[in-house]
């Protein structure tokens, strides 16, 4: 049965009103500089923070930024917060990506963290000595397996073309087996890949950051202890920023995210109230 033209017009109007409301909910908190105030970090973010915080200075930590610019808003604040924590604790982060389109994003996050380290704590971090930007190599799962055999042949040079074989930042690291902790930030199935082909096989501890839509899929790995912690979506990034006491884009986005979530909840409830009234009046069957 064809839908009447008046109904179609009304539906289109409702859709446009919703789009305007969403735009307002996201934009206004940024323009008005609304802040949600202090909040309690979640338990999984706290676990990851405590794990990283417990490592002694000089410990090598691999961070794999497996995402592209599509997930920049959610995942870049996580990467930056983790790197800030690493530099504050004088850990040695080794950064790589499995996304060719994520390479420059990883470079930018690393350079921002290096700048922050200088500004915030007066610690000048030098590439090859205090950190390594390993970059991208093709191979996917096979690259992880290769890194498990020999990390320096998997990445013979770093992003800047410097040979890794005698690099000070990689001293004592032959393969993934020599790492205490690996953290993967991903917008895809890379978290599972790192667990199955990396952590379970080579014995390092693994923590993850993921987009909010993916985070619920990863709870089984927290329960089994295959992950030491999880940062879920922008809230995860904001939690970590609160834990390291360095506010950034994650915290800034909380007001917009709060407004957007509340709007969706109000829309769902309003639609259901309307549905119940229409059903009671016999105008809708369900």
């Amino acid at each position, binding site marked *: 049965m064809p839908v009447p033209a008046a109904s179609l017009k009304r539906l289109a109007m409702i859709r446009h009103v919703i789009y305007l409301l969403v735009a307002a909910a996201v934009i206004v908190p940024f323009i008005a500089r609304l802040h949600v105030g202090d909040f309690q970090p*979640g338990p999984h973010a706290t676990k990851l923070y405590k794990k990283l915080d417990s490592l002694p200075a000089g410990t090598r930590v691999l961070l794999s930024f497996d995402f592209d610019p599509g997930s920049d*808003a959610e995942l870049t604040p996580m990467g930056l917060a983790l790197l800030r924590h690493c530099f504050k604790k004088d850990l040695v982060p080794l950064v790589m990506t499995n996304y060719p389109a994520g390479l420059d994003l990883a470079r930018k996050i690393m350079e921002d963290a290096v700048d922050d380290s200088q500004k915030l704590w007066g610690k000048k971090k030098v590439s090859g000595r205090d950190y390594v930007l390993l970059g991208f190599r093709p191979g996917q799962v096979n690259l992880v397996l290769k890194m498990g055999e020999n990390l320096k042949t998997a990445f013979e040079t770093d992003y800047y073309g410097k040979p890794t074989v005698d690099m000070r930042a990689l001293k004592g690291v032959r393969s993934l087996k020599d790492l205490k902790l690996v953290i993967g930030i991903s917008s895809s199935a890379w978290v599972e890949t790192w667990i199955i082909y990396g952590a379970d096989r080579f014995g390092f501890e693994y923590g993850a950051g993921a987009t909010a839509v993916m985070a619920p899929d990863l709870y089984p790995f927290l329960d089994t202890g295959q992950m030491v912690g999880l940062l879920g979506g922008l809230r995860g990034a904001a939690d970590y920023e609160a834990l390291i006491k360095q506010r950034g884009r994650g915290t800034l986005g909380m007001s917009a995210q709060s407004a957007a979530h509340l709007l969706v909840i109000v829309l769902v409830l309003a639609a259901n109230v309307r549905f119940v009234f229409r059903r009671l009046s016999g105008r809708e069957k369900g």
Partner: protein
Amino acid sequence: MWYKRTIPLLLVLAFGLAGFGHDYVPHPASNAFREEVTTGFVIIGGFALFIGAYSLFHMHISRIRRKQPGWAYSIFVFLGAALMVCLGLWNDGDWMFVDPQPGVVTSFQWCYDYILVPCNATIFSILAFFIASAAFRTFRARNFSALLLLAAAVVVMFGRVPVSERVGQFLFDSPNAFAHVSEILLNYPNLAAKRAILLGVSLGVISQSLRIIFGIERTYMGGGD
């Protein structure tokens, strides 16, 4: 046709069993073999990028040639790719971008930072509009199961934002009330369902792998049997 069917099947059998057996043979020779094989895999993986690029260009050339609806957009695929390749190859006379230094932004990186990143983020952000609209139009408590799903979604969504702490404090004198219920929903019903799916998928992967290793499943070779 033994070289097209028998040899690939034997190779799959040999490498499948070798990959499986490696985990049970901690001998240096076994590790050396594995290292050589994974190096080969990484090299082969590199070719996947060329196949991907070929597939993308082939599809868009076909769209332009056939003048399919929206064919003009395909031109931008080639323009964008050509621009980035040119900037990469002839960036201040450097061959590709082999010698970037920390803090130095090349034109290639500028295009990445100020064109690719905002464009990709914009496309992804459109999702918020669609989700809000779809939630309003389709998320109805038509029966008890739908009502449960709706209630769980609302609680989890609310528990994920800091403003829930203010509301929790006001209503229940506990700032973490909503976050706590949200965690319970994620930790128990969600985890149980996800675990069941994971176990099912894993069993499926194991059985499919065995079928491929022993030559029962041959569709990956083409031909359909």
